């Protein structure tokens, strides 16, 4: 069986911005596969090229070397099987919450009746029925993320790419959103590539956690299977012995990289 998403010896090099700078090797020789219906988190220190990896998977960025395969087919343009949840605000500010959620359907040319009904249904799923007619600037950070989640999921992508989607939220809102994501995923198992710098978040959500080295030349340096039972509650699972033990093991690998990454940002 071919993986839903397969990175095959990927390297990404950015050309220098100034003449006397060296080119930046963001990602080097990375091979990574995500199975169908598997939830994989990628953790690494800040600025290590995690987002670069995700952009390559989305087809927004072509790798300098190597190839990406989606369900066995080589990716040459945008990844049509993938939905993307961004770290930054990605909603269209001139559309209401309902219009934003229905945007993908509108782009696909669906009849207006569907574009009216389905977003309402999805807004209810993420608990925002009351905010359908609000514009993004009238929504809180957590509400925007919910709209973004509904917007990405309504077109039913087979692969979900998530770039630190909850990093800007406060801890309580964040755990609520993580639980909601898990509930949605439990009902309709998509292949998820979840990028985060938060190890606890990675463990509590995933089937597998991949640790990346600090940049440049970022590549996977560790892989851990998370065999914690599902369904999970992200707040409670953090207190179980299994979780603590996994956290300990992964942190051993991650710590050195975090220190390296920190040294670079300070320098």
């Amino acid at each position: 069986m071919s993986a839903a998403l397969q990175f095959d010896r990927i390297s990404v090099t950015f050309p220098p911005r100034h003449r006397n700078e060296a080119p930046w090797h963001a990602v080097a020789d990375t091979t990574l596969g995500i199975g169908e219906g598997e939830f994989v988190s990628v953790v690494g220190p800040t600025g290590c090229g995690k987002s670069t990896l995700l952009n390559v998977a989305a087809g927004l960025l072509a790798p300098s070397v190597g190839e990406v395969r989606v369900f066995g087919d080589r990716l040459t343009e945008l990844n049509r099987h993938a939905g993307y949840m961004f770290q930054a605000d990605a909603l269209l500010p001139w559309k209401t919450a309902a219009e934003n959620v229905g945007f993908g359907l509108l782009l696909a040319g669906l009849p207006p009746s569907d574009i009216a009904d389905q977003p309402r249904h999805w807004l209810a799923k993420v608990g925002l029925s009351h905010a359908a007619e609000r514009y993004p600037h009238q929504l809180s950070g957590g509400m925007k993320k919910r709209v973004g989640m509904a917007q990405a999921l309504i077109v039913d992508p087979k692969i979900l790419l998530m770039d630190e989607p909850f990093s800007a939220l406060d801890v309580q809102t964040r755990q609520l959103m993580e639980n909601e994501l898990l509930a949605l995923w439990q009902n309709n198992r998509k292949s998820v590539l979840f990028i985060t710098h938060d190890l606890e978040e990675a463990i509590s959500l995933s089937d597998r956690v991949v640790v990346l080295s600090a940049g440049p030349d970022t590549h996977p340096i560790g892989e851990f299977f998370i065999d914690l039972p599902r369904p999970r509650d992200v707040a409670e699972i953090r207190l179980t012995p299994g979780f603590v033990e996994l956290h300990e093991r992964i942190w051993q690998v991650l710590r050195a990289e975090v220190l390296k990454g920190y040294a670079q940002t300070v320098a």
Partner: protein
Amino acid sequence: MHRPSPKRIWIWQLAVALTLFAVWWALTASKLLPPFFFGEPLKVIARVVEWFVVGDIWQHLGVTLIETLLAFLIGMVLGLAIGLWLALSVTASTLADPYIKAFNAMPRVILAPIFAVWFGLGIWSKVALGVTLVFFIIFFNVYHGVREVSPVVLANARMLGASSRQLLRHIYLPSATSWVFSSLHTAVGMAFVGAVVGEYLGAARGVGYLILQAEGAFDINTVFAGILVLTGCALMLDWGVTLVERRLLKWRPSHLS
């Protein structure tokens, strides 16, 4: 800080206007300022009232407003179309860059006589002048509007399956129009300036023409009356723009509400 209520401030604003008029009246009535050059406020107001009562002013005002409206609409469509085109095509914008800069730097009011020769003394020479003024305001705002589109929003729309035509329709155009609307006050004002200056330089109708006629006859009161009518008209246009803006930009965060 203590702020007066909106009703109060309205009264105070009116009081300022009345005071200015009173000072003007006192200075000219006492002959401290020669009325021949500075006019007489009572006669100015009488002239404005007479214009509206007899109805002479309507055809002139109508012509000026039609010129303003046409200049604004044509300038806006051209600015929108060319702005979108240049912002989205790197080749076209690099090629056109020096010409856009030169044409924008040029004092375009000086084109009025040429337009008069080309389009005659009717409304179209004034419309043409107004268009050259409006176009650049709209153009630069559209250009910025397209360039300032958040790359994340753009990537999001592309990931959701937007074609380049859909990107234009749902991303670039709304972003550009929001910038255009923020410059609407200036653009409408400029269209008005184009119309009046055009009339002033050669016309057979319009408020600008009326003022020119009065100046020729050393009728300073009529000149001031014309200016007063123009100011009132400009204020009303501005108010209309505010209404349109509130309707169309309701998605934007407002510091007023």
